[in-house]
């Protein structure tokens, strides 16, 4: 599964332009699925049929944050705008890469004070001598993402886009290994989550699931002078209670806790004071879908170097498996 993760983090896929990462994921799951399709918003939807009559939707988003080029100036420098939650304050001297591999680095205009550092003071330098040369490689409207890197130690992984390639890897891993599911399981690799959980909503509308679980990363409170938050790397799979996008269905939350305790999988509760996951969109689909989120604890989200703990990652994989195989899913669905 770590191999899958490494493969996935290397895929190019800023929100709205997921075709490359879609192919990479599709290659890994197609032969293990009963049906695979994409939809109008670019979601990748794989179905594994089960013996029962209920539909379970699992969602992890394929897209990552990035930047879009808005201007090529006469000297070959590029101006850009964010795609998703990119913090202009951390972009100086970061490298970005385009779909075709073209690389650029972020420079900044002269500043009177650090407080003046804003998006409009930044530019991307791809080493072109002038406008003409730049336009041979890049044009207005093209998008780029953080340069790719992947490091693992014995216990931690530092890579770009663990948000949410880690979730995608968990889903893909489960899909490959799951035999005879009790219900129809829809593994949805969603699009455009980073710009407003858009793919998840249209995917859910099409699938009409009875129950859904999003798998995404969440922040931690375990770094120096961090905002108070209970989640820590190494303490296990994080079971989301609430974030600013959704309040998890209590039946799903409680079942995850119960299963973790029964299977002795380390877990922790998560309350996030900002952010959202695909659960937000799925929960509000049509007449409502009981939804929750299983979270992978992750430091430095939305930076080029996100960090997760391998034991947490494995705990999430284990808990996800337990969840999907649980006989109690029917109870949650029935009670609604």
């Amino acid at each position, binding site marked *: 599964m770590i191999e899958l993760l490494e493969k996935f983090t290397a895929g190019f896929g800023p929100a709205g332009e997921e075709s490359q990462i879609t192919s990479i994921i599709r290659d890994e799951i197609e032969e293990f699925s009963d049906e695979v399709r994409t939809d109008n918003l670019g979601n990748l939807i794989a179905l594994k049929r089960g013996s029962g009559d209920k539909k379970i939707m699992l969602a992890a988003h394929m897209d990552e944050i990035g930047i879009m080029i808005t201007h090529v100036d006469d000297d070959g420098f590029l101006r850009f705008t964010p795609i998703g939650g990119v913090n202009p304050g951390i972009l100086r001297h970061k490298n970005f890469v385009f779909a075709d591999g073209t690389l650029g680095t972020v420079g900044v205009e002269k500043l009177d004070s650090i407080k003046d550092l804003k998006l409009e003071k930044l530019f991307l330098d791809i080493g072109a001598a002038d406008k003409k040369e730049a336009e041979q490689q890049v044009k207005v409207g093209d998008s780029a993402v953080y340069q790719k890197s992947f490091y693992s130690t014995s216990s931690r992984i530092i890579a770009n886009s663990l948000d949410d390639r880690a979730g995608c890897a968990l889903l893909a891993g489960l899909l490959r290994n799951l035999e005879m599911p009790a219900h129809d399981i829809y593994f949805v690799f969603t699009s455009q989550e980073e710009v407003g959980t858009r793919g998840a909503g249209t995917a859910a509308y099409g699938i009409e699931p009875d129950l859904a679980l999003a798998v995404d990363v969440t922040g931690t409170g375990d770094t120096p002078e961090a905002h108070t938050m209970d989640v820590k790397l190494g303490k296990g799979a994080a079971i989301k209670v609430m974030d600013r996008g959704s309040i998890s269905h*209590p039946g799903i939350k409680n079942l995850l806790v119960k299963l973790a305790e029964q299977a002795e999988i380390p877990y922790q509760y998560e309350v996030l004071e900002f952010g959202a996951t695909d659960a937000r969109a799925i929960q*509000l689909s049509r007449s409502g879908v009981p939804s929750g989120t299983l979270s992978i604890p992750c430091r430095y989200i939305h930076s080029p170097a996100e960090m997760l703990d391998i034991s947490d990652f494995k705990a999430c994989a284990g808990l996800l498996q337990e969840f999907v195989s649980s006989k109690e899913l029917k109870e949650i669905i029935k009670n609604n």
Partner: protein
Amino acid sequence: MNGGYLTIMNKIEKSTDIKKLIKELSERSAVSGEERGAFQLVKDFLSHYTDEIRTDPLDNLIARRAGTAEDIKVMLAAHLDEIGLMVKSIDDNGFLKFATVGGIDPRTLPAQEVIVNGRKEITGVIGAMPPHLLSRDKRKKAHKLEDLYIDTGLELEEVKKNINIGDTVTIKRELTYLENDYVSGKALDDRAGVLMMLETARELDKIKHQADVYFVATSQEEVGLKGSETAAYDIFPDVGIAIDVCHGQMPGVDRGDASEMAKGPAVAFGPQVHPDIYQLLTKTAEERSIPYQKEASTTPYGTDAASIQIARSGVATALISIPLRYMHTSVEVISLQDVKSGAQLLARTIAEIDQDFLEGLTCY
């Protein structure tokens, strides 16, 4: 987890009066996401006036009362959830750090008694340092959320046995009866609206109406108008009326931003209100001499009316609000007269809805 700290809950009878009802409603703990805390109370009352009651995947409580026609659906929506807090962390000394659920003003929190809805209800206090121990500048600034904590007085062991991350916290406040049929308490936003909805059921029981009426105690309004979105999709009514609260007149507030107290409910007009329903409400009020006020909205947002209106291919909606002072504090004040007038107005208006009226809704 529980249903309010008044441990003796009297059975709600068909005849239970409005003063008792508002006390029971206000004192229930039902923070967004835990509306079940107030289900029993609402179910008990509505069971006397409706034909079927169910809940849905988002914990909306939906009760349907049949009308004489078969094909007219009116949906009333009042949100059952209240703003509150959620435990996000327990420190080494057993103090609880918390996150907000819905729009809580941190300045209303220091020195507030609360109930932590853990394995059992636990009383706590949101600590506020006494002025003697604070520096002069600290005293001048409002408390920041990050600095506040809940003190249960319990040792860490006890805390951990009974409280988990994710447990909700409600403000502890008993309802107070003031002069002139005013009441004060927490969560009158929108328990007062729920009360108006229940009273409307009571009023409808006395008259004939063609429309099937859906009484929906919606969930998660305070965190994004969520319950009403899915309930409206599911029911897809011909007419949807949200019942909420609006600001009541008080010093320091522009007259244009608030309605007067005890002069009748405020009937809104604005982008989220279908002009025909507004007309029907105001005309009915005038014909029957029911006091009401007008409220102009520049934006459609802020109440369940906004999400009901955009369900599927669109719903004709309206909004009626109870003037309320000190919104989102634990001492909200409303006039029960306004609730009674509102219930009468809604019942009488619903009774006027027939096929002809519905056909006119798409004539612009």
